[in-house]
C-alpha cells in the first residue's frame, strides 16, 4: 500500500472555482516524487491539502490517504496525529515556519518532547544529533540562536532538522530552496538527497524548477492550472516530454543550460 495516495483531489475556493482539479498520484514508502508546476498551478495547495492544512475558505473533495488516514474526512485530531510521525513539511521561507520568539534548540525540542517523550539529557543530545545531521557546525551556538540571527541557509537547515527530528516516513518539501542562493541551494539539495537516502524517508518535492526537481526526485507529476498534464519517471519526462506544456518547460530549462554550455566551448 502507498504511504500517500491521492485520488481525484479537487480543491475549490468559495466561488466554487477549482484551483486543483482531479489530481491523482501516489507516493510509496521510500519513493521520491516531484510535483512540478509554475505559479498558479495548484502545486502548493495540493501539498497543503495532503497535510490537511488548507486555509479556511478552500474545500477539498476526492480522497487523500496518508498512511491509511483519510486526510479530508477524518476528525482534526486523527489528522494531526498522522502529520507528526508520518509526514512532516518544509516550506519555502523558513522564517515563516519558525517561531521568531523561540531559539532553534527549543523549536526542535517541541516535536521530540511531544511525540517521543524525551526529557532532560536525552532531549538535549537528541537536539544536538538533529542539528549535526543537517550539517550545522557549531550546533550549540545555533541551538541558542533565534531565527532572525541565522542566515537563510541555516534557517532552512533548522527547519529540516525540525521536520526530520521525529523520523517521519514522508517528508514534504515545498520549494525549500527557492529563496536561497545557488551555492546554498546546492548544499541543501545534497543534504536532502543524502538524508532521505540513508533513512529511507519518502520525499514529496514541490518546485517550479525542473532542473532542481531532476536533481532530487525520481517520479514526477507536471501540474498546470490545477491539473496533472504528465506523469512518469523524471528522466523519461525530460528526455521525451509528451505534453506541449512539459515540452515548453524542458525547452526553457535547456535554453539556459545550452547558453552555459556554449561558454565552455568558445
Amino acid at each position, binding site marked *: 500500500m502507498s504511504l500517500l495516495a491521492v485520488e481525484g483531489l479537487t480543491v475549490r475556493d468559495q466561488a466554487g472555482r477549482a484551483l486543483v482539479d482531479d489530481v491523482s498520484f501516489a507516493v510509496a514508502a521510500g519513493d521520491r516524487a516531484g510535483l512540478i508546476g509554475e505559479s498558479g498551478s495548484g502545486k502548493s495547495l495540493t501539498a497543503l491539502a495532503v497535510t490537511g492544512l488548507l486555509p479556511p475558505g478552500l474545500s477539498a473533495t476526492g480522497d487523500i490517504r496518508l498512511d491509511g488516514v483519510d486526510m479530508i474526512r477524518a476528525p482534526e485530531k486523527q489528522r494531526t496525529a498522522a502529520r507528526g510521525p508520518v509526514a512532516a513539511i518544509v516550506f519555502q521561507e523558513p522564517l515563516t515556519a519558525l517561531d521568531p520568539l523561540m531559539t532553534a534548540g527549543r523549536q526542535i525540542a517541541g516535536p521530540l518532547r511531544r511525540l517521543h517523550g524525551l526529557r532532560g539529557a536525552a532531549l538535549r543530545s537528541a537536539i544536538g544529533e538533529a542539528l549535526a545531521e543537517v550539517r550545522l557546525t557549531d550546533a550549540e551556538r545555533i541551538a541558542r540562536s533565534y531565527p532572525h540571527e541565522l542566515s537563510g541557509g541555516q534557517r532552512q537547515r533548522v527547519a529540516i532538522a525540525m521536520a526530520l527530528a521525529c523520523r517521519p516516513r514522508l517528508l514534504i518539501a515545498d520549494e525549500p530552496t527557492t529563496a536561497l542562493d545557488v551555492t546554498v541551494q546546492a548544499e541543501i539539495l545534497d543534504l536532502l538527497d543524502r538524508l532521505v537516502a540513508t533513512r529511507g524517508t519518502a520525499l514529496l518535492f514541490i518546485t517550479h524548477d525542473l532542473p532542481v526537481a531532476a*536533481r532530487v526526485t525520481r517520479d514526477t507529476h507536471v501540474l498546470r492550472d490545477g491539473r496533472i498534464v504528465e506523469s512518469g519517471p523524471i528522466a523519461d519526462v525530460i528526455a521525451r516530454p509528451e505534453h506541449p506544456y512539459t515540452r515548453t518547460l524542458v525547452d526553457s530549462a535547456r535554453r539556459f543550460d545550452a547558453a552555459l554550455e556554449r561558454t565552455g566551448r568558445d
Partner: protein
Amino acid sequence: MTEPIISADRVGYAYRGGAAVLTDVSLAVPPGRNVALVGESGAGKTTLLRLLLGLTRPTEGAIRFEGGLLTRGRLRDYRRAVQAVFQDPYSSLDPRHRIGRIVAEPLRGLGLGAEPAKVAAALEAVGLPTDTAGRYPHEFSGGQRQRIAIARAIVGNPRLLLADEPVSALDLTTRVRIVDLLGSLCADRGLTILLVSHDLGVVAELCEHTAVLEHGRLVEQGPTSQVLGAPSHPYTRRLLESVPRLPA
C-alpha cells in the same frame, strides 16, 4: 576605444562606522557590450547598483558617466541615459497609479514630453496591448508587470539599462520570454544592459562580459566565455558547479 557609458573607478563603500560593503571595485560598461554582475546575497551587488544609479555616493573612488565624473549637475542627463528595472515586479509599480501614468513617469520627471504616443510605443515594444495604459498593476501577472517596468525604463530611449535580477522572481517559461525581450531590445534599439544576476544561465544568454563579486570585491572579470567557460577563481567555479542542470 569607445568611451564607456558608465564606469566605476576603484569604488569603495562603507556605512558610517561600519565595515566596508564594497572594496576597490572597477567596472566599465562600453556601449553595445552587455555586462553581468554576478554574486550572491550579501556580496554587495545591491549597493554597487545604488552607487551606479546615483542614489548613494561612494565613500571611495568615483562613478564616471561618459568619461566625466558623475556630479549633481549632470544627474538629469545621466538619468536620461541610464534607467533601471528591479527584481520584484510587485514592489516596483505603484499600486495606486494606472499603467499609463507609471510608464510616463520618466518622461515627466526628465522633461522629455509625456506624449501618450511615446507610452503606447513603449508598451508595444515590450509586447503589451495599448489598452494596458488605462489599467492598474494588480490586474497583471508577474511577467506582465516586469514588461511594464521595462516599458517604463525604455520609454525615454536610454542608452543603458541597469537590470537588478530582472527574472529571478519569475517562472521558468516567463523567464525565457523576458530574457528574449531584453535581448531583442538590445538588438533593435541599441540598448546596452548591465545585468545583476545570480542565474548564470541567464548571464550566459545575455551578456558578453562577466564580473564576479564576492564579499564586496570583484574576484574575477572578463569575457563571459572565459569567466564561465574557464573560471580561474575558486568561488566562480563553486557558483558554476552549483547551477542545477537537466540531465543530458
